């Protein structure tokens, strides 16, 4: 990365962290305060559920920040286990059924928590920045399971592809479309490495992004 880009990213990191933490923190505070006044039992249940959701979101953001910073204690621990990768991808998808096509087979050996976070981050990135349908091809080669996510979309700037796994880098489209830290793919990359695999991206011919995930096979 060029020095001026590095400096820009460092300045941006503090700015983005402050802003991104602000929404769940202020939401938690607001929900806690209105809960002290709200009398309607049904509404109280809704507010309590929202409070828990936002506290969890805050905790997740902090975990991701620590993981992006290379703090390994923030990464999932425990034993690796066989994980059916196509099943994990289908389970993580909460969008339209027709918008995701998964083909092929492959069982990885990894911590389930890592695989779920990787898959969620990769799908979220593809959904947020590109179009549909998303297609995922899973295959096995030697002792590795490979998944390739093909997400069509507008042509991406070269630096958006080159720096996609740099924490706090966000593509031009993302900046006005939705909030976000810009650490989804970097954290997914850290998790893939934690499991003995790797994650990388390439520009998709015709526009969009190809995301490659490689994990140890069962």
């Amino acid at each position: 990365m060029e020095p001026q880009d590095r400096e820009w990213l460092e300045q941006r990191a503090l700015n983005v962290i402050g802003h991104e933490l602000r929404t769940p923190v202020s939401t938690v505070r607001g929900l806690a305060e209105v809960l002290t006044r709200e009398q309607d039992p049904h509404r109280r249940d809704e507010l309590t559920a929202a409070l828990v959701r936002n506290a969890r979101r805050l905790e997740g953001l902090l975990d991701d920040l620590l993981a992006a910073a290379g703090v390994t204690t923030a990464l999932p621990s425990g034993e690796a286990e066989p994980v059916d990768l196509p099943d994990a991808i289908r389970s993580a998808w909460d969008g339209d059924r027709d918008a995701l096509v998964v083909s092929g087979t492959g069982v990885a050996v990894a911590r389930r928590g890592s695989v779920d976070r990787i898959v969620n981050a990769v799908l979220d990135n593809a959904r947020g920045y590109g179009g549909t349908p998303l297609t995922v091809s899973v295959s096995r080669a030697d002792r590795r399971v490979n998944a390739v996510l093909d997400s069509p979309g507008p042509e991406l700037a070269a630096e958006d592809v080159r720096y996609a796994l740099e924490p706090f880098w966000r593509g031009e489209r993302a900046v006005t479309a939705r909030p976000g830290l810009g650490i989804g793919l970097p954290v997914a990359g850290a998790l893939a490495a934690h499991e003995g695999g790797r994650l990388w991206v390439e520009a998709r011919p015709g526009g969009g992004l190809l995301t490659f995930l490689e994990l140890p096979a069962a």
Partner: protein
Amino acid sequence: MSTDSTVRVVVVDDEPDIRMLLDVQLKYAQGFEVVGLAADGGQAVELVEKLRPDAVVMDLLMPGVNGFDAISMLQQQCPEVGIVAYSGVAGDFVREEMDRRGVEVVLKSGDVGPLGRALRRSVARHHDPSPD
């Protein structure tokens, strides 16, 4: 305004929890009535054209039609409606863009007070367009 000083408000935010929170917070803040909730800029424009509220609370970063574009549309189609940008992101770019549109920015907060005051100012500006 609908009654003496009740401000009829449409809330626009892509996060359901924030829509719910503002609905409840503005209920407890005196003088506001939330008449509609929208999840993106496109829904917001439809709802505002239909309901003609006094003011709109507009999130900026949303998928689909974002708040920047929705504000431009509303200012053309419903110029009598006050708008307050309510965002978790309020850096230089946001400030400059909202200044250019004459829209006040309020940073998202657990305290609804600053938002309520900004809503009243936005409504007052549309009743008396001279500078504050």
